[in-house]
Structure formats: structure tokens, C-alpha cells
């Protein structure tokens, strides 16, 4: 095997491929993350429709594949086949580039997000700054798409949603600053902007930042959680596509594949922003109580979780397959579901085997593999929690009016985040 592939694989290297200067593995990580996010977006699409349906006392998609499992694929194919209409005298180039900007902004954030101490594309030492900068580029995609559609309502919708994103970006930035402030409360007195550094700071201080100086970390976290919902135009702040007012906001004139790019960008931005919240406040890839229960026995128990979760999923799918009606036309769906259950069961088995094999303390490949899986599992579990919150918000909350939304952004969130920042600083100086 050529040197540059193997050089990164030996266990002694504990640096992300980007900072190890290994372009090949950096590319590998980019592809893995891109595929991972796409699969996550597809699952998110299905889960959102089903969960929203069950909130609203209905079944959600049931017809395309067993329990609507093939519905996202059907949607994707439909959107690809659908005609891609460009409105008359719209600005072709700008109309085409707008979703690209949105998508670019949503996905470049992932180069910075740490799934593990070395499982990130690159560990920039300005990680958070890069993240804030790129997420502010997303606004441009929306503004330009509104303008390029060359009609009245999308323009107003675009201006509204970009004004909303810009004002909540300020509150979000300040909440992030108070989290970074907490990283600097160590012996050396200098914090770090790099995302991996932040999680390691939480590890050293032995507390997730959401629980540090209890009310303060939590308030900053809540402000970030609200700002991130507004940043991605979701749930109570989804004013841009408020049907009852401005038809469908900035992406009214888009159709077919171009429209699906906007949806992909929205979901990717949701996952990106919640993974930043997880990294900053919920201790990124750390499993719960890493310092409290760090005996190897506990490590082993916690490393069984991935296998158990997949096992549970496999069991549920298998029961559903058994409970499906037995008429002839359901046969294919039953088989399909059973195969899916078998696949999940196989993954569960694989994870359990790795967990058991990796128990040996030496730095064998299995142990490194098991650690990697644990990191990614706990990270993804926390992000999934946030995703469910997004859906829950959408089911229960009515929509804010635009002026209320701006009032909250500037008059409530900004002062509180400033206050939290100042108080955290004071408390930090006193205690360290």
C-alpha cells in the first residue's frame, strides 16, 4: 500500500488528517462526512414526516415501501424528474448560483465539526470563527435567490428571512463567545477557538459547558438553541415560508432539483448548527460521565451502546415485518422490511463484536476502531436529540410575527447573551 495511505493508519497518529497534512485521508473524511450527512438528510426527511404525522394523530407516508421507508427516495426521484422552471427574465446565472451558495455554506461547516479527537476533516485553530463566517455566507444564498426570482413576493420573503438570519447571528455569536470564554478557565489561561480544543477543554475541566457555573452555561446554551432555530428558518421562526402570508418565501419560483437543493441545504444547515451546539455545550464526542466512571468495565459497558441501539432498531423492524398484513400484494414489502431488519441486525452484531474485541487495552486496530465508533455514536446521538427538538417545535408552536421575531432577536436575546458573557467572565475570574 502506498505510504500516504498507511502512514495515517498506525495508531500512534492522533491528529486529524487535515492537520497531519495527509490530503488523501482528508479527502476520505470529506467523502465519509458528505455521504453521512446525505444519509442523515434522507433519514431526517422520513423521520420528520412520520414524527410530525404521529404528533398530529395521523400515520404519515405508509404507501411507498413498508411504513413509507422508500418515501424519501421517491421524493428525490420525483424532484429530479420534475421540470425545472426558470421564471421569465429572471437572471439565469444568479438564479442558478443561489442554491449553490446555500449548499456550499451549509456543507463547508462540516470540515470543522469534530466527530472525535482525530475524526474531523481538519482541526483549524480558528474553528469556531470559520464556522460563524461560513454560516453567515448562507444568508447570501437566500438574499440572491429572492432577487433572482424576479417577482414581488420572493423578494420580500428573501429580505425578511435574511434580516432574521442576520439579527440572530449576532445573538448566536455572543453565545458562542461565552462558551469559548469557559475554555480559557484552565491553568494556562488561554482558551482555544479550535473545536477539538473546546471539547478537550470540557474533558479536562470534567464538566460539560452546559453545566459549568450552572445557570450561566445553561442560559448561553438556551440562547444558542433558540438562535440556531431562527438561523435555519425553522419552526416558530419559519416566517419566510409562512403560507398564510407570502406564499412560499424565497424559494417560491424554484422547482424540481433546484428546489431540492434548498431543502438539502436547509437540513444540512440544521445538522451543522446542532452539531456545533453539541460540540460547544454538550461535550462533543464524550460519552456521559467520562471522568466519573472511567474504569475499563464502564468503558466496556458504554461501548456496548452502539450495538444495543442498532439491535433494538433491528428488533423493532423485525416485529413490524412480522405484523404486516399477509395478503399477497404485501409480500414484497414484508420481504423488504425483513431484509432491512436483517441488515440492521448484522450491523448490531458487527458493533457488538468490535466492542468485545476492542476491550483489550493495547492499542490494537480493534480498540482504535471501537473508540472511533464510540465517539461518533455519542456525537450522533446528541445531534439526533436536537433534530427531534426541531420536529417537536414544528408540531407544537405557532409562528411568530415578523416584528415580534425581530424584537426578540434584538431586544431579548442580544442583551441576555451579553449579560451571560459578562457574568461568565466575572465568575470565571473569581473562581480560577
Amino acid at each position, binding site marked *: 500500500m502506498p505510504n500516504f495511505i498507511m502512514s495515517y493508519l498506525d495508531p500512534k497518529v492522533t491528529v486529524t488528517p487535515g492537520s497531519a497534512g495527509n490530503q488523501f485521508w482528508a479527502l476520505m473524511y470529506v467523502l465519509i462526512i458528505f455521504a453521512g450527512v446525505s444519509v442523515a438528510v434522507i433519514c431526517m426527511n422520513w423521520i420528520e414526516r412520520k414524527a410530525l404525522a404521529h404528533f*398530529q394523530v395521523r400515520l404519515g407516508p405508509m404507501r411507498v415501501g413498508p411504513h413509507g421507508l422508500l418515501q424519501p427516495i421517491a421524493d428525490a426521484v420525483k424532484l429530479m424528474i420534475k421540470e425545472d422552471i426558470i421564471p421569465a427574465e429572471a437572471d439565469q446565472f444568479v438564479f442558478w448560483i443561489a442554491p449553490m451558495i446555500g449548499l456550499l455554506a451549509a456543507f463547508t461547516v462540516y470540515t470543522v465539526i469534530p466527530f472525535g479527537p482525530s475524526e474531523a476533516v481538519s482541526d483549524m485553530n480558528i474553528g469556531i470563527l470559520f464556522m460563524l463566517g461560513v454560516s453567515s455566507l448562507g444568508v447570501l444564498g437566500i438574499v440572491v435567490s429572492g432577487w433572482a426570482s424576479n417577482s414581488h413576493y420572493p423578494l420580500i420573503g428573501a429580505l425578511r428571512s435574511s434580516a432574521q438570519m442576520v439579527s440572530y447571528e449576532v445573538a448566536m455569536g455572543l453565545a458562542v463567545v461565552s462558551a469559548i470564554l469557559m475554555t480559557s478557565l484552565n491553568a494556562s489561561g488561554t482558551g482555544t477557538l479550535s473545536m477539538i480544543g473546546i471539547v478537550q477543554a470540557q474533558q479536562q475541566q470534567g464538566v460539560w459547558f452546559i453545566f459549568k457555573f450552572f445557570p450561566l452555561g445553561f442560559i448561553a446554551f438556551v440562547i444558542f438553541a433558540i438562535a440556531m432555530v431562527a438561523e435555519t428558518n425553522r419552526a416558530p421562526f419559519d416566517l419566510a415560508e*409562512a403560507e*398564510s*402570508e407570502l406564499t412560499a418565501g424565497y424559494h417560491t419560483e424554484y422547482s424540481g432539483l433546484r428546489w431540492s437543493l434548498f431543502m438539502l441545504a436547509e437540513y444540512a444547515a440544521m445538522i451543522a448548527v446542532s452539531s456545533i451546539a453539541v460540540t460547544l455545550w454538550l461535550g462533543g464526542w464524550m460519552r456521559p460521565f467520562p471522568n466519573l466512571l472511567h474504569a475499563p468495565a464502564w468503558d466496556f459497558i458504554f461501548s456496548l451502546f452502539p450495538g444495543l441501539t442498532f439491535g433494538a432498531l433491528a428488533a423493532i423492524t423485525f416485529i413490524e415485518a412480522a405484523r404486516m398484513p399477509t395478503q399477497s400484494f404485501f409480500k414484497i414489502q414484508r420481504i423488504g422490511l425483513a431484509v432491512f431488519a436483517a441488515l440492521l441486525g448484522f450491523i448490531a452484531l458487527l458493533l457488538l463484536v468490535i466492542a468485545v474485541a476492542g476491550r483489550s487495552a493495547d492499542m490494537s486496530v480493534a480498540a482504535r476502531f471501537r473508540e472511533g465508533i464510540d465517539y461518533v455514536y455519542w456525537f450522533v446521538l446528541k445531534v439526533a436529540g436536537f433534530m427531534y427538538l426541531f420536529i417537536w417545535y414544528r*408540531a407544537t*408552536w*405557532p*409562528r411568530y*410575527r*415578523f416584528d415580534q421575531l425581530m424584537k426578540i432577536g434584538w431586544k431579548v436575546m442580544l442583551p441576555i447573551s451579553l449579560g451571560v458573557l459578562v457574568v461568565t467572565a466575572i465568575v470565571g475570574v473569581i473562581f480560577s
Partner: protein
Amino acid sequence: MSDRTSDALNRAPSDVDRSNLDLGTPDKTYLDSNELIINMGPQHPATHGVLRVILKLDGEKVLGTECVIGYLHRGVEKIAENRTYTMFNPYVDRMDYCAAVSNGLGYCEAVEKLMNVEAPARAQYIRVILTELQRIASHQLWLGTHALDIGAMTPLFYTFRDREEILKIFERYCGARLTTHAFRIGGCQYETYAGFEKDVKNFLAFFAPKIDEYEALLTTNRIWLERTKNVGVISGADCIALGVTGPLLRASGVKWDLRKAQPYAAYSEFDFEIPTGVNGDTYDRYMVRMKEMRQSMRIIEQAVSGIPEGPIMGKVPKVIKPPVGEIYHSIEAPKGELGYFIVSDGSTQPYRLRVRPPSFVNLQALDLMVRGLLVADVIAVIGTIDIVLGEVDR
């Protein structure tokens, strides 16, 4: 576009005539007037049917509105003049199609009063039960669509699931769900089917916790409060001046409900309260309607348990020829006071039949309530007035 702004826009700026600009005073009209006149409807997702509202906006604030109606005008009152009294009965259900039973009750009672015939007690009890069930169904439909306009998607599915139970009872009783044609002049057409009382009792038991579900979802919902408190405020005096009736009037603090003020059917035999609001905003109207649903359940309970035996049809001749004269009779429909003014010339067909629909009158209050609010509130206010275009246009 108002002429001033439109011609200024399409004239190329380089040849802007400077004549009106004597150098001393800047042309004020440009500075502050960017009034916009936009059209909401008739095909707008939030105008509950084919209502067209012309909004005069200053930026986002509403300066004034003008409702254009008539898109659903079918000339029901003219048709009535060449239909016999019994033939016209089904037309009445098509006016306020969300509360068809109440329309039928109003019409039948008006004709009975004209002929001074009294429906038997059992028929009156059946009429009260069905009308109150219809009131709950109409309020459910209002809550679902109103919450959806303001952005809450979930109540719509809860309310429609529960409304289904009421429609099942109607279907078992008179064969139709929406345009029920449940009553006849002089009483009821159909005897109650075998399990009628049991079904109604089951519904009451089923619905009691459900209404708490709606309240749990919305009443203390921060964003719901923010979107409804102090929105579309109208005072009691303005309501009376505009002739506004029903939940709008009661939410502004005026305790006026025809079921208590001018008791008809068997309402005098039941005890129930009339919920009223305090400051007449969208939230109070929401609370008034929710309490009304609870009161309707109380009425139904008393009516079902006390339903008397006896005939269901009064002594009414086969061909109805009311004596010469005119009559105005009004009942408390879910949206407000629904009145029938019938002039009879002794023949089998009414000389003139005028309907006073509550939605039509309540819609006048839209302009007063919406002035100074934002566009998003116009939708919330239209929802809270609870208009049905079939009744507005007739």
C-alpha cells in the same frame, strides 16, 4: 399601484421633471408616502373561501381595508320567492355550510311562528341537541383553521378528528354529514334512531378530555398569546354600533345571547352560562368560544337525559300556506344572530324572504379591528371573526 408612485417608477430618472421642485422645498410626497395597495384573495389560503380584501399598506402596517364580496352569491333570497316553504328548506343548509343544522332550525322556527304552530316538546329537545352538537362542530372547525393560519399545525388534526364523531351522529340521524336538512316545518322528520342517546352520551364522554387537549396546546402557549393578545381589539360599543353579534360581541364584554335573551326551542328549560370576555381581543374570542363549547356540552347532557316521549311532528297541514303577514325570528347560530324575515302573502310561496347572516354583519368589523395592525394580523383577525363566505354572499 397608486398612480403617483407607478408613473414615478417607470419614468427614467434622468428626465425627472424638476418643475414641481422649486429648489426651496423638497417634494414631501416622495418622502413618506410609499403606500402600497395589495390584493388579498379571492384565492388566498387564509381567507376562508372567496373573500377578497383590498389592503392599503404603509410598508407593513395596514392603513385601511375594503372587503370585496359576492364571489359566492347564488341569489338564495330571490330563489325563495318562487319555492314553496318546504321546498326552500334544503337551500337554507347551503348558506352557512359549517352550521347547517342551526340554519334549518332558524328557518323552521320562523315559519312555525308565522303560522303560530308549536313544535312538540320531543321535537324541540331533539332540535336543541342537534343544534348544540352543530355549534361544537362549527367551533372546532373555526379553531382548526384559525390555529393553522397563525401557524400551529397540530390543532387542525385534533379538531377534525373530534368533529368526525359529531358528523357520524348527524349521518346516522338524518343521512347527511354537512347539509343535513334535519328539521321540517312543525317538528322533526325522523324519529331518533335506536342508539341515539347512547351515541350522544358516548360523544360527551369522548369529547370532555379532548377539549382540554386543545386548551393544553394553545391557551398557555407563549407564541399563541403573543399572536393573539391585544390583536384586533374592538370595544362593546363599537360592536353594538356595527351590529356585531355572537362570540365577537360577548368577547367585548356585552352579555347578549339569544338563547337566554329571547329563548326559543327548549332552551329556557336548561341552565347554562354565557361566557364573556373582557377586552375584546383575539385571545378573548378564543377563550369565549372554548367556554361556549363546554356550555354546549352541558346543554346536550341535560337535553339527552331529559328528552320527553311523544310525537315529533306538530299539526301542520300537508300544504303550508301561512296567513298573510310578516315575521322576524332570530336564533343564536355559532357565528352570531341568524335572523329570518319572512313576508307571506297567503300563498304557498313567501312574498319576500330576507336572511340576516351573522358573518356578513360581523365582517364589517374587520376594517375597524385591523387598522394599524400588520399584514400577518389581518389573517389572524379574519380567522377570529370566523366568517363563512356561503353565508356572507348568500
